[in-house]
């Protein structure tokens, strides 16, 4: 079908519009089994995805679900519903459009299962949940098309792996299903096409006109950025001026904590009382929805936000994007600035605001890359098996299944095309019996094989548990924050459990732009009261932490090598000169190591420029060596450029630390016991269904009934080191968090050229490291020494000793 029905042509004509060429191209390919459209934000991408649906429904009345739309964000589903309902109503088409996300009411969800709309807008998690119902075949009966929006974002995560497994399942239910992917500009469209299409179906890639080059600059401020920190408070006056000069500004931050602090400071300086809102994933849903609604009505002049607004939500007339903090990744930056000026053929306008002087260098490097159109990206490995384990459990919830058929279905999903039968069987065994070397669960196996060979859940009660734990998003454990009950009990949002554990009554922190005082923990809720007087402690919300790409790292090292820096602002050039004066600048082909005392501890900073993950691994390996050497390391923090290690005793000679053979040899054993592996294990064990985040009858109480996932990890290491979950943990760590390849590459690059600079204070370049979040503790002898010290002090104070 390639002709646009008259109804729709008339609608375009009545507005003096005509369809974009790529929208018509999508219509022409409407019968293809899979099509990927690459288009800039604002390129009428969504309409391109839905035009074939509207055309089909305009000419052929359809009963039940026709098109399923999946996006990574709940807000995006709601937004598309709004933007699609308008034209559909105006065209007078009898099409019912509904969204279904975690925010949809239970009543509405039940009704949707009985009587599905023509177009259902949802998220990968809600789709997975739908597929776990026994009546999934009836819900999806007649489904013709599936549209995956922002597929470039999904393709980078386990949410995408889960979605592509879900599509394989859907294809089994609806053999004629056609798939469409909508993507922002990416470096390797073919890789995304392979994920989208049923393996080994072909998938055409359509490219829309990318539009004019963006107008992107670094924000000029009267005041220089600070030497360290991520708040960018110095830029508040300049940012306010920009907000005043534009209709609507989106102010992006890399972390929620930074967004909170910036918003707080912005309000303190907002003398004119401009309507400015805040939006991030830790805020209470009602608060987020209020901001979204105000935005749609055009009532807000600016929104301070994080990655939750990253994707193509079309909220009114955004004419300026401000990125606070270094963009870390050229591709993401390009996608983010595409958010401004949602009119085709108008250049997007964006300003970069470095939060500190190191980020000035990063921003300049990123601007150069954007101008050259050099996108970055690294290929993802095969689909992870923890997601597969969850998929097997989801399948079992829907009813008895045949292992052979499920294997065939799973390997038709792009990420799992190369999965072997043995790998699949190991996952099935894990789901059925736990997959332990000790066969302990013959009686209580989770899945059992029936006489007819089909697999089913032994205990139907398990269905509730499994459904409650669907999804691959791993928020760290969070606690709800409420105003104390006798003062209204209003929910404000969430904070991390680990952060809550550090609070004592009277402590203050920021949430939703207000300062609150910690009153106490009641059941699993953090009770607070408003407190406007004090300076807050900083809430360590999780935020997406981007890793700086290899390309950017290399550009920065090249920049460092210049004799002077005409393209940098004077303050930053002066700062680099100062670093060159008191220490030196990191160079290609050499390794700079600085040692200095700070805050009663000895610090060593290693400028490896190997990327965050490799620098993190280096931190683990080096702290292990230091522990062996009796130097009492306490912890480390890694950025994309350096690893900063602190401990009780100073490092005298770093050269032996970088012996490649010893680092390699120790990798296996050292990795086993460290915190990063435990964190990785927790994530995979939760996805695979070994750890249940949610239990019927309320969440885990965090009291004596529950115990840490670290105990499970240690127990498996001790008694069952070849267990599937430990294999998955090692795989995940090696490909993601460990990235030993980059360390090898770095070691080869530096050879023996190690420059150790010892100083009596923090160096200009090392200072920002001290404020990095994500510090990794080392649990070694230093902990015993600290406890002994503190115990002695406490006993003495109490007069008991």
């Amino acid at each position, binding site marked *: 079908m390639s002709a646009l029905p008259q109804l729709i042509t008339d609608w375009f004509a009545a507005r003096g519009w005509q369809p974009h060429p790529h929208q018509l191209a999508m219509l022409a390919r409407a019968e293809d089994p899979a099509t990927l459209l690459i288009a800039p934000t604002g390129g009428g991408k969504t309409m391109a995805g839905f035009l074939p649906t509207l055309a089909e429904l305009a000419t052929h009345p359809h009963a039940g679900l026709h098109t399923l739309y999946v996006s990574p964000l709940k807000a995006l589903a709601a937004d598309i519903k709004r933007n699609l309902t308008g034209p559909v109503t105006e065209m007078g088409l009898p099409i019912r459009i509904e969204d279904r996300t975690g925010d949809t009411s239970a009543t509405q969800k039940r009704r949707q299962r009985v009587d599905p709309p023509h177009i259902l807008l949802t998220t990968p998690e809600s789709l997975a949940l739908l597929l776990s119902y026994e009546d999934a075949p009836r819900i999806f009966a007649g489904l013709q098309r599936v549209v995956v929006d922002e597929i470039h974002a999904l393709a980078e995560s386990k949410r995408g792996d889960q979605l592509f497994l879900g599509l394989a399942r859907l294809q089994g239910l609806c053999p004629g299903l056609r798939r469409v992917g909508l993507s922002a500009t990416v470096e390797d469209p073919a890789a995304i096409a392979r994920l989208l299409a049923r393996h080994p179906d072909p998938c055409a890639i359509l490219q829309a006109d990318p539009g004019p080059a963006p107008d992107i600059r670094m924000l000029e401020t009267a005041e220089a950025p600070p030497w360290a920190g991520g708040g960018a408070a110095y830029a508040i006056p300049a940012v306010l001026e920009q907000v005043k000069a534009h209709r609507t500004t989106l102010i992006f931050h890399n972390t929620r904590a930074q967004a909170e602090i910036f918003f707080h400071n912005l309000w303190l300086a907002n003398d004119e009382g401009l309507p400015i809102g805040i939006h991030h994933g830790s805020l209470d849903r009602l608060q987020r929805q209020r901001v979204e609604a105000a935005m749609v009505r055009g009532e807000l002049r600016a929104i301070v936000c994080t990655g939750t607004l990253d994707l193509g939500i079309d909220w009114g007339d955004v004419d300026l994007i401000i990125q606070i903090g270094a963009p870390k990744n050229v591709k993401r930056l390009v996608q983010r600035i595409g958010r401004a000026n949602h009119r085709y053929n108008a250049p997007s306008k964006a300003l970069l605001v470095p939060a500190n002087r190191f980020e000035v260098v990063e921003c300049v490097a990123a601007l150069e890359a954007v101008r050259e159109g050099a996108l970055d990206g690294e290929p993802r490995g095969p689909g992870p098996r923890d997601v597969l384990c969850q998929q097997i459990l989801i399948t079992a919830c829907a009813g008895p299944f045949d292992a052979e058929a499920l294997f065939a279905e799973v390997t038709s999903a792009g990420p799992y095309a190369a999965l072997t039968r043995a790998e699949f069987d190991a996952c099935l065994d894990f789901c059925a019996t736990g997959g332990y070397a000790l066969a302990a669960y013959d009686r209580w196996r989770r899945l059992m094989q029936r006489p007819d060979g089909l697999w089913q859940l032994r205990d139907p009660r398990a269905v509730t548990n499994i459904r409650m734990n669907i999804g691959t998003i791993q928020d760290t454990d969070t606690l709800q924050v409420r105003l104390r009950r006798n003062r209204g009990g209003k929910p404000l949002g969430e904070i991390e459990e680990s952060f809550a554990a550090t609070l004592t009554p009277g402590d203050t922190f920021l949430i939703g732009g207000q300062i609150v005082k910690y009153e106490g923990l009641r059941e699993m809720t953090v009770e607070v009261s408003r407190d406007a007087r004090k300076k807050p402690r900083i809430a360590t919300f999780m935020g997406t932490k981007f890793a700086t790409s290899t390309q950017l790292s290399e550009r920065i090292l090249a920049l460092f090598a210049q004799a002077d820096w005409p393209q940098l602002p004077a303050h930053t050039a002066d700062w680099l000169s100062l670093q060159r004066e008191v220490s030196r600048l990191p160079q290609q082909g050499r390794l700079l190591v600085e040692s200095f005392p700070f805050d009663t501890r000895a610090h060593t900073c290693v400028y490896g420029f190997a990327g965050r993950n490799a620098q993190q691994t280096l931190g683990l390996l080096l702290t292990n060596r230091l522990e062996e050497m009796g130097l009492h390391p306490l912890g480390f923090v890694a950025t994309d450029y350096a690893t900063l290690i602190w401990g009780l005793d100073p490092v005298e000679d770093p050269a032996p630390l970088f012996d490649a053979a010893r680092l390699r040899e120790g990798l296996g054993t050292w990795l086993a016991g460290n915190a990063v592996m435990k964190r990785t294990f927790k994530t995979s064990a939760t996805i695979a269904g070994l750890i*249940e985040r949610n239990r019927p009858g309320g969440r885990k109480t965090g009291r004596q009934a529950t115990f840490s996932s670290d105990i*499970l990890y240690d127990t498996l290491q001790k008694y069952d080191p070849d267990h599937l979950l430990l294999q998955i943990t090692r795989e995940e760590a090696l490909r993601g968090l460990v990235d030993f390849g980059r360390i090898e590459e770095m070691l080869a690059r530096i050879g023996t050229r190690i420059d150790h600079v010892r100083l009596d204070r923090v160096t200009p370049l090392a200072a920002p490291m001290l404020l990095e979040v994500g510090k990794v503790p080392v649990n070694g002898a230093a902990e015993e020494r600290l406890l002994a010290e*503190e115990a002695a002090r406490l006993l003495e104070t109490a007069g008991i000793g």
Partner: protein
Amino acid sequence: MNACDLSFCGLRLRALGSGALFWPEAGVLCVSDLHLGKSERMARRGGAALPPYETRDTLTRLAADLDATGARVVVCLGDSFDDLGAAAALPEAERLWITRLQAGRRWVWIEGNHDAGPVDLGGAHLAELAMAPLTFRHIALAGAVGEISGHYHPKAVIRTRARAISRPAFLADRDRIVMPAYGTYTGGLRCDDAALAGLMRPDAVAVLTGAVPHMVPMPR
């Protein structure tokens, strides 16, 4: 031995880094909240199949403490099994192991809220055990004196100059000792929780378990 001495009711008791309490004079080793068979119970109730190794891990540590102390009497202070079904379902190898540990010593199972009833294993089953001047029971009673109890799985969080460290802990004042949980699959309740803060006297101490036990004023 890695232990911290506690003076209690005129006795010298030793809080071991493992979480066991030893009374050298009477040769009594007390452990609380073993929660043996926890993984079996979870699986039976349709939950996840946890690594089924917690019983052998707990018994391995208990055997090491028995070797190190040469205890003549063992008091398991309740919640020794995650429930009575878990006790009944212990694999043969682990039942035999417990029998071996019991050989040549007096063994007392105190009833807990998880295992309130006799189990089909050797040893005496008691609601509580009096050994003057001490009384062993699972859940502390208000107003009791000379009482050793468990149940709460206390843990203490100490803020040091570098970081906060959290460990299972003994809580002790002049009237009572509340034991940390000994079982491998157990979590903890912070001792500043109202249930524990209200139970202990203001001058109570906490002994943090670990490679070296550390005594501190009980954090509140």
